[in-house]
């Protein structure tokens, strides 16, 4: 069973979590052209790698960030959004 470390609730089985997708900073909609905006809306970093992702521990509704290798499914670390780091 896959275990995910929640910064608040500790190590829990993956079934208690909801995946929220990769962290994607939003460009300023008033400052960018249509193509950049459409790219933000639709395009994804589809190739594998270490990514920062949103996850939610659903019984406690805790949203937090997980750094995970999407090729090997290894989790590097997890933390609350307030402690956001750069990778």
């Amino acid at each position, binding site marked *: *069973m896959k275990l995910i470390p929640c910064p*608040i*609730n500790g190590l*829990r*089985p993956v*079934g*208690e979590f909801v995946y929220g997708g990769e962290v994607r900073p939003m460009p300023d909609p008033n400052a960018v052209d249509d193509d950049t905006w459409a790219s933000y809306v639709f395009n994804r970093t589809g190739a594998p790698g270490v990514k920062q992702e949103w996850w939610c*521990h*659903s*019984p*406690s*509704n*805790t949203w937090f960030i997980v750094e995970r290798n999407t090729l090997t499914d290894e989790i590097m670390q997890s933390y609350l959004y307030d402690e956001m780091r750069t990778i």
Partner: protein
Amino acid sequence: MNTPLRLSPIHDLLQSLPGNWQAINGMPVLTVSPPTTSPLILTDRSCLTRFGVKGANAADWLASQGLTIPDRPNSWCPLPNPSAGIIARLGLSEFLIEDSLSSRLAPQLAMACQTPPAKVYPVLRQDLAIALSGPATHELLQQTCNLNFRALILADRPILLTSLIGVVVTLLPGEHNGHPFYRLWCDGTFGNYLWQTLVAIATEFGGTITNVEL
């Protein structure tokens, strides 16, 4: 009995059980004398009054109401005497206050929170609240939940937010007469499913079902 103000989420499922009905906190409650020895006892405690609040300023607001709040996420502490109720911190900034049969703190907090300050949000708690107790409690939990409850340190007063047979629940582990005693809360709309499934498993252990202990 007049039209009750509140109903337990599993009111209908309790109809076939023997016992006496009486109103407690506006809810019809089936009272059954608790058995002295049973491997597993399921008790419906939904009739207790409770109050939920969350938000970035919820902790400060509760403190301003004169309450001592748990200082760590996912822990609990008793309400001030003479009450035997509890205040639980669910995650970082949400709280659950549940009275005992004899206290009335939760309705007072609900009144005080009718016009809450900024970043304080009252949470409607129409839970199914049950207690699991008896020597076979851990066996039941093993079949229904992924967590290892035996590894918990009860002196830390932990609160667990997890899922039991797929239902999101809040668990408060404790001990009573040398046996595990777990309080459990879940959204009332899942009540029938959760109760029926737990009863089915408890029956395999030769467990019994009671209502609130008086």
